[in-house]
């Protein structure tokens, strides 16, 4: 039995055959302690085959579940295989695997967060290219969330995150559907788990199409705002670690 903590990098990918190989290679080179799991979210191209050739374990979802459902299956995998830490690295080459070590360091230092989030907006060399419509949305969420959790949240839509066992167990049970990162912050807060943001570098997408196109931004914003406000109105579960989190799907009626 090994006592070394185990790390899993989940790479959600939807039609990313152009970039996935590069992402996997970068992970191998610059984050060697991470096992890699690619979640192929019902791609119609050969994303899964490319990932398998690159030596990653691949979950092939039978149809497109959307980013939330895809990442959640990564959480379930991490939970079932007993990983201590899991991180999400997008398959489009936005995230720099070399920055994972920073997340790991922040996880193992005070204030001992349950989730470390890589933020594009905290670094000094701030020149991350985001379209104005996205940026407006991000700022609205950032302001709202910072107010709700009464701590500064600068980049609530960043998916570049590292989760510990408690967070993995929470999100394996219940993870929001689309644009899940924003709501996930709120869930952590409600479940009394701590998060911390650290500055990271990110790139513009390496190829493929973002799950959130400009036209859909407004739609998603309204949807997530609704989810946030409803989330506020929900009974806040004060769960002890190891308690059951409420989940809609598993309980049927």
């Amino acid at each position, binding site marked *: *039995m090994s006592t070394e903590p185990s790390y899993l990098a989940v790479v959600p990918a939807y039609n990313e055959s152009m970039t996935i190989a590069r992402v996997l290679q970068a992970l191998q080179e610059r984050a060697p302690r991470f096992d890699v799991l690619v979640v192929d979210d019902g791609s119609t191209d050969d994303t899964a085959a490319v990932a398998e050739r690159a030596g990653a*374990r691949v979950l*092939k*979802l039978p149809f497109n579940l959307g980013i939330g*459902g895809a990442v959640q299956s990564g959480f379930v995998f991490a939970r*079932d295989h*007993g990983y201590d830490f899991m991180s999400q690295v997008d398959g489009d080459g936005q995230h720099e695997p070399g920055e994972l070590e920073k997340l790991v360091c922040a996880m193992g230092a005070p204030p001992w967060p349950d989730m470390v989030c890589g933020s594009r907006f905290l670094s000094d060399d701030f020149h991350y290219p985001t379209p104005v419509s996205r940026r407006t949305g991000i700022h609205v969420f950032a302001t709202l969330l910072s107010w709700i959790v009464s701590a500064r949240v600068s980049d609530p839509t960043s998916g570049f995150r590292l989760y*510990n066992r408690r967070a993995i167990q929470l999100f394996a049970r219940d993870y929001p559907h689309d644009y899940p990162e924003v709501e996930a912050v709120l869930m952590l807060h409600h479940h009394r788990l701590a998060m911390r943001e650290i500055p990271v570098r990110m790139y513009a997408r390496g190829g493929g199409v973002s799950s959130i196109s400009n036209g859909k931004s407004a739609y998603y914003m309204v949807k997530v705002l609704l989810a946030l406000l409803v989330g506020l109105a929900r009974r806040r579960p004060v769960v002890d670690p190891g308690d059951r989190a409420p989940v*809609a*799907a598993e309980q049927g009626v």
Partner: protein
Amino acid sequence: MAARVQLVAIIGAVILLFVVLEMVRRRRLMERYALLWLLCALVLVGLASWRSGLLHVSRVIGIIYPPNALFFIAFGFVLLLLLHFSTAVSRLSDQTKVLAQRLALLEERVSHAERRPAMGEEADEEFEPVASGHGRRFVSSD
């Protein structure tokens, strides 16, 4: 209420009642989804045939022309049914999501096992911990 309107309403409601019952009999409609339909059909049949009852109801809700009360109640049922279906769809899509995830996890498990054929105990151990939800590599992280 004009006799003709009443007749049409009764016939319509009875047909609805009959169709719902027939679909349940042929197992085309599950009982749990039929209940609301049956309630709807029964109430409509009742109000359509029981004149003074409908008159009373329409007076209570402030509708002058009693057949309109019938439409009003039917519309209320339609809204209720739609809401019922929306919740059913939400539940189903949630369940489908979980199923898709489980399927993908199982497939990966199988293909992973096939790629590394029987290695005796070591292989067994690798695949055991899932039911408990805690892998053997669990190390307290708090």
